[in-house]
């Protein structure tokens, strides 16, 4: 059931007050059992008490009235620290609210804290955080997925009913899958990026985490829409969508390749059989010729943009600084000591591919490949309403397992990155637990601005599977 509806019912019936609800979540969150939070909003109780009065007066206004929300620590909330899980921003206090935060506040949401992540959203395991790795609530020895690990954990472990994260190459969908919750990566441009600390500007998108599809829909509906401060944002189409069942869904051929863990494959088959049996969908395999290139293209584009986006952390105006009488030594020391290994690796990679002489070979070529990937997706959408594939080729892995091998870490994103390169929306559906009790999630991909189709279809699937 919808957490949002449940809580607002409690307020309407005057069974509970916002401060009661906040205390419940805040106390659980503050224990920080899984290291899912980097910092907390110490004023949240006071903010909740202001809403208590309104409940007593029967003035429950706003779609998120008195609903606690956790926010990934790369989204700015005015007056709160925003570290991006990096030493360079360890003590940085946000001077303004991100557009999505303004929207949440207008709807009465209460921000309880800032969640752990891979430094600058670069990583798939949440192990590259300057403030320590986070733990998967289903097995503390294992990673929660990244980069929005903390957001996924907070929703999964009941530390917050809702969370906002960001997805550049799978950073919402992967931890959602590893932690057994819903996670939506919206169409590029559907949600304003103003106030999201940029990793790769042409790929980044903010999106919601929730425990049911209805809450994902409510949260997405609030944050979406054109923002004058983000020129890449667009007006969201208003039309209603009426799916006709059974839907035609394409299953990516590579879902069953030897790169994918056996149990994920059998679960996917099970999932497909179930939907066919219920006459929700008919399935057919489809092939993506560009599939094998997606990781390479992604790392060129993302790292190139990151190398430029992260140039501002130079110690001059704010953030971490290693003082030195020589300007160039100051820059070098500040950035060497301030950034973690993975971030430096990507800055160097991005700097390299933009160098004159290499730019055409790498960046320009990658952009062309990107267009090709999009075209291949769009071609498949001529036949299918939705596409289905695993979120990750592997189940939540053990901490430390992939740290020494960045390439194997990068490969955990093979099913997610091409969606970002194409700018399409995709959503993680938490299907079941593995034999070892680890969550398995699948990913639906749709055409641009068809998030409403996800909501309609997944409500039906959710009802069928989870009751």
């Amino acid at each position: 059931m919808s957490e949002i509806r449940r809580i607002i019912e409690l307020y309407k019936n005057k069974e509970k007050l916002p401060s009661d609800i906040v205390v419940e979540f805040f106390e659980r969150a503050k224990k920080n059992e899984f290291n899912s939070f980097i910092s907390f909003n110490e004023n949240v109780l006071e903010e909740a008490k202001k809403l208590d009065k309104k409940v007593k007066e029967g003035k429950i206004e706003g779609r998120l009235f008195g609903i606690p929300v956790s926010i990934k620590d790369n989204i700015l909330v005015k007056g709160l620290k925003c570290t991006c899980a990096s030493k360079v921003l360890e003590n940085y206090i946000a001077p303004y609210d991100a557009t999505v935060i303004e929207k949440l506040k207008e709807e009465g949401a209460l921000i309880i804290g800032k969640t752990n992540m891979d430094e600058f959203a670069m990583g798939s395991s949440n192990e590259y955080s300057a403030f320590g790795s986070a733990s998967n609530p289903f097995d503390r020895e294992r990673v929660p997925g990244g980069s929005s690990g903390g957001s996924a954990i907070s929703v999964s472990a009941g530390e917050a009913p809702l969370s906002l994260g960001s997805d550049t190459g799978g950073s919402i969908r992967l931890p959602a899958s590893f932690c057994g919750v819903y996670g939506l990566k919206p169409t590029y441009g559907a949600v304003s990026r103003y106030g999201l600390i940029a990793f790769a500007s042409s790929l980044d998108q903010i999106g919601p985490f929730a425990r049911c599809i209805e809450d994902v829909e409510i949260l997405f509906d609030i944050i979406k829409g054109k923002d004058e401060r983000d020129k890449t944002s667009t007006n969201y189409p208003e039309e209603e969508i009426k799916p006709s069942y059974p839907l035609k869904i394409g299953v990516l051929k590579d879902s069953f390749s030897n790169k994918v863990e056996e149990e994920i494959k059998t679960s996917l088959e099970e999932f497909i059989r179930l939907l066919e049996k219920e006459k929700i969908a008919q399935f057919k395999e489809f092939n993506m010729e560009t599939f094998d290139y997606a990781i390479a293209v992604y790392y060129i584009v993302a790292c190139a943009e990151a190398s430029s986006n992260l140039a501002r952390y130079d110690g001059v105006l704010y953030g971490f600084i290693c003082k030195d009488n020589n300007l160039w030594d100051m820059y070098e020391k500040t950035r060497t000591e301030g950034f973690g290994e993975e971030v430096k690796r990507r800055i160097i990679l991005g700097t390299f591919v933009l160098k004159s002489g290499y730019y055409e070979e790498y960046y320009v070529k990658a952009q062309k490949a990107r267009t090709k990937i999009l075209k291949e997706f769009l071609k498949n959408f001529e036949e299918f309403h939705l596409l289905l594939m695993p979120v990750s080729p592997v189940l939540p892995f053990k901490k430390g397992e992939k740290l020494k091998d960045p390439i194997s870490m990068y490969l955990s994103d093979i099913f997610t990155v091409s969606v970002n390169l194409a700018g399409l929306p995709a959503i993680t559906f938490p299907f079941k637990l593995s034999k070892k009790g680890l969550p398995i999630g699948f990913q639906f991909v749709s055409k641009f601005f068809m998030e409403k189709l996800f909501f309609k279809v997944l409500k039906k699937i959710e009802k069928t599977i989870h009751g």
Partner: protein
Amino acid sequence: MDKFEIKIGLEIHVQLKTKSKMFCPCKVKVDDEPNKNICPVCTGQPGVLPSPNEKAVFYAVLVSRALNCKIPEILYFSRKNYFYPDLPKGYQITQYGISTGSKGEVPVIMNGKIVKFPVERINLEEETAKSFHIEGKVYLDYNRCGIPLLEIVTPPFLKSSEEALNFLKSLRRILIYLGVSDCNMEKGEFRVDTNVSVNIRGKESHHRTELKNLNSLSALKESISFEIKRQKDLLEKGEKMERETRLWDEHKKETRVMRTKEFVEDYRYFPEPDIPPFKVKREWFEKEIPVLPHVYYQKLIKKGAEPKEAEIIISSPFLSEFTEKVLEKLPFNRVKGWILTEILQHVPDVESLKNLPFTSLEFIDFVEKIIEGKLPRHMGQEIIKRSIENNISLKKLINEKVEIKGGLELERIVEEVIKENPHVVEKIRSGKVSAVSFLVGQVMRKLKGKANPKEVKEKIEECLKT
């Protein structure tokens, strides 16, 4: 043919006078107390995004149109990546690969003629912060950071310091006429970097000198001349030259090495992902381009102005328009003294001409009165002076002189009274000064008391002296 081949190229940076900055709503006001007009966007805080100022894009298009540039249908910005404390994002948003304007020309006034010099490209970009060095410390003022900046680049087509100077004078005037910048060089609103390269004809080499610290047009001319001579001397001696940046020393009147460019900085340009490519709006092409200074110049020459006179007049778009209207009614030689000497000597600077307290029609009427003898020349000079200094319209001053304080009328009546009373005049001239008061009384009576007795007395004394 000269043994040497001289190539001079210019790179001009112009601050556009929009109300707000290039990518954020901060005010464009560099003179305010330091770091007053700043926001998260122009100080490069985490998470911010740029929103292009449409007026600045329009200005860039207007300049490109005025200089006959090719303008693409779709524009986009790029990032120029480098580290420096005056650049808070670690990159400058500029144009690369595609320019707002390319392959244009500047109509340059040279020795009384109009010569067209090529412009390679016109790019729109953002200004950096201003740094101050005080007692070994560096201070940064971000008021300037993010102001829209136009970069105008010429190919190395100029051959002498005179050509460069005339080019810059003409370009600066055009920009002022277009209303896109005040181009105040002292304030840094119009900055010039110069490339000079002298070769022995037929023996091309890749050396070139970039000149910096040119804060005035005269410094620019002197430094180019110095540099040409320096390079010629070195060539004569058979010495090799490199690519280097040299600084102009205003006191010693010489250039000295700032840095040699052994390695060229790699700016790692790539298209700005935060600003999608955008269409150049049709309506930007519909707006009329103001009449350019060289057009006024040519008209003035036709009407008989000397090149120097014409150049003074076109230094101000207001004065050009004013003079043009006056010349519709009056010939140039009848008005040139009044405009070039009388008006100009009383205005503090060319800028303030636009605040002249009279219209061209009033001025025409004024000059006509002088031509017709209704207003003596010396009185006209005084009227112009008082009009500009006290901000009073010409019409009002002429009327005052004539009707209230006497003025024309006073002079006529004083002369009349003197003629009518030769005996009294005789007495005064022979020493009986007190007899003046009789004449004052006579004048006052004829003016029906509409004058100041003190002024009348002065006027009588003045007339008796001559």
